[in-house]
């Protein structure tokens, strides 16, 4: 019994050593917690910045759309029939009479094609982003498994 007691005594940690271990453990926990918190704060801050940036870009897009529409109308205002007629008359022009026209027969002349509005306002959903920008790692792995030929003979 005494031998056993001595054995324990032999391998027993000194009190100050145990306390130091506990302090070390607590400090490690604190450091890990601070690191996790720091990482969390960093990610959160970057997310917030990205979110704010997205909000600002969206506002800019909306504003650009408004300005585009406004400019198109402004251009139409500046080239309206009334304005153009007034400018032409000021410059000394007058409407041509039918008997003043000279027609030439031009072989191979193609008439002006029908007007088609530009693809302004085209829905971005029709041009989706490639999967590299949208899929998660798991999605990519699933796609890789599906698309990769597993049978070596097919390679």
């Amino acid at each position, binding site marked *: 019994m005494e031998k056993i007691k001595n054995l324990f005594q032999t391998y027993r940690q000194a009190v100050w050593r145990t306390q130091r271990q506990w302090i070390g453990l607590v400090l490690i926990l604190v450091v890990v917690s601070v690191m996790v918190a720091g990482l969390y704060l960093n990610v*959160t801050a970057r*997310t*917030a*910045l*990205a*979110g*704010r940036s*997205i*909000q600002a870009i*969206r506002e800019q897009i909306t*504003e650009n*759309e*408004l*300005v585009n*529409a*406004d400019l*198109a*109308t*402004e*251009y*139409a*205002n500046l*080239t*309206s*029939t*009334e304005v153009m*007629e007034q400018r032409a008359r000021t410059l000394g022009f007058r*409407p*041509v*009479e*039918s*008997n003043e*026209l000279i*027609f030439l*027969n031009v072989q191979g002349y193609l008439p002006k094609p*029908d*007007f*088609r*509005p*530009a*693809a*302004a*306002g*085209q*829905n971005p*959903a*029709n041009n989706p982003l490639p999967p590299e920008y949208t899929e998660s790692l798991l999605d990519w792995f699933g796609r890789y498994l599906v698309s990769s030929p597993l049978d070596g003979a097919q390679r």
Partner: protein
Amino acid sequence: MNAKLAWRYRITQVGTALVALAILVQITRIQNSVQAQAILDDTYRYEGEWTIFYPPRGEIFDRNGKLLAGNTIVYEVAVNLQEVENPHTIALATSVHLGLDYATVYDQITNPGAGVVSLVLDDYVSPDRINETKKLMDSLENETSGLGDANRPSLAGLTFNAHLQRSYPENSLASNILGYVNRELRGYYGIEEKYNDQLAGVPVTAWVPLNPNLVEEAPEIRPSATLVLTIDRDIQSAVEQILDESIGTYGAESGTILVMDPQTGDILAMASTPRLNLNEYWNINDIFPGETPFNRAISQAYEPGSVFKILTMASALDAGVVQPGTIFVDTGIFTYGGTNIRNWDGRAWGAQDMIGCLQHSLNVCLAWVATQLGAEDFYRYMQAFGLGHKTGIDLTGEISGRLKLPGDTDWYPVELATNSFGQGVSVTPIQMVMAASAIANKGQMVYPHLLKTIVQDGQVREITAPQIVGWPISEATARTLSEMLAISLENEASDALVEGYRVAGKTGTAQIPTPYGHYDFNQTNASFIGWGPVDEPRFMVYVWLEKPSASIWGSETAAPTFSRIVQRLVVLMDIPPDSVRLQATTGP
């Protein structure tokens, strides 16, 4: 460490642990309390907002890509009450620059009511006025920011939110066709009402978080449709100008002119009076008092008079009842159904062939022709020409006119004779144009339409191709009648003729029925329908002048108006004179 000290340590540890536990319990309790939930709910209101995203209203172009209806930026002026520093400055600035009432604005800001965090002071404010206010705002900020005075002049809290409103660059041009959009974004009249759903698009409601951490994918808003019309802006402008001049020259009360491509049904111009500056649509009740139709071309039926004779003659020729050379001896009176039919001048014109009957517009002759055809066939043809029914043109407000038929309680046998020269039957200008398109277009009657293309997402969604809505007469009949009408104009040396271009057409002078059941001999509807070039028609023009006072006759008012329009059309449509065109076709 002795046992006593260890015991104290234990007590301290347990005590600290209990305090920590109590704090945790309290934190948990507070976070899950009713009050906490109320606060959470309250903060949720400020995390974002449900927003309705309206796609910009679709644009409307003419056939050559000229913008007829677009959108322009205007501003909503609001006050964020939490940021207001000086209500007096805001009330003063908005009264000076925006024309608002000082006392009202001041009262709204200082007594906003419970729970109100923002106020809308004005909307649809032009950018010019907003810029003036913004300049004032900036100068105040620069000059007074360092004063530190609580009562310093400040426009803090005043916000300007841009949005779009409908704008019509051409003001009143083609207003009868386009219609307008009010501030509730609803289209009224014309294209704006007919295609309101396509132009307005589908609004999307989505939660827009203010917290950047909660930012979500932007809602997918499908752009509204863009419309391309068959209208040619330059032709429309010329036609409106000529119409206004003719109304002034001939002292007419109102007028309507239609220009259509008789081969496709494309409406190239549709002018009607009065017209509304669409950017000031709120004046509509002043400009269209009472029951004044917004677009006479589709919404006002009238007795067309002698222009109707072309339909009677087309029916008789097609049925083989008469030939161009058939001779009718005009005695100046024709009795049918107990009523005496007389010519416009009361004269007897003697022996006339069918060309002469059209040339001199003889009521007696055409009444005889209709009776030779018989009521059954006559009305069958009239229905085949689409009379009594709406054409289905893509505009709101079309009416069907009235074609009384045998068997109707108010139809009498004499109607057959009077209808033959356009009395007792009411039509709209668009109906007459559609019916006459069969004569100009080889017997094929085309569907008149204004929509050329719908474009959405950059893709052409719909094209209104030429549609044949009936074959009331044969190609041979159509060619024969066109030729007869061209000859009759040439023989008459009509004011409708255009040098270098062969046109076919017919005048009309219709007395106006009174509420007392007889006709007013001093007031008429003067009209003319014609097309050209005769061998390959590119345009069909219908002119209607209501109650001209300079002359009651269509030949002296509507016919010269037609000629003026054609002279502009051949320039604007690049139609060479017949001699040049035929030479180019047949070669040197």
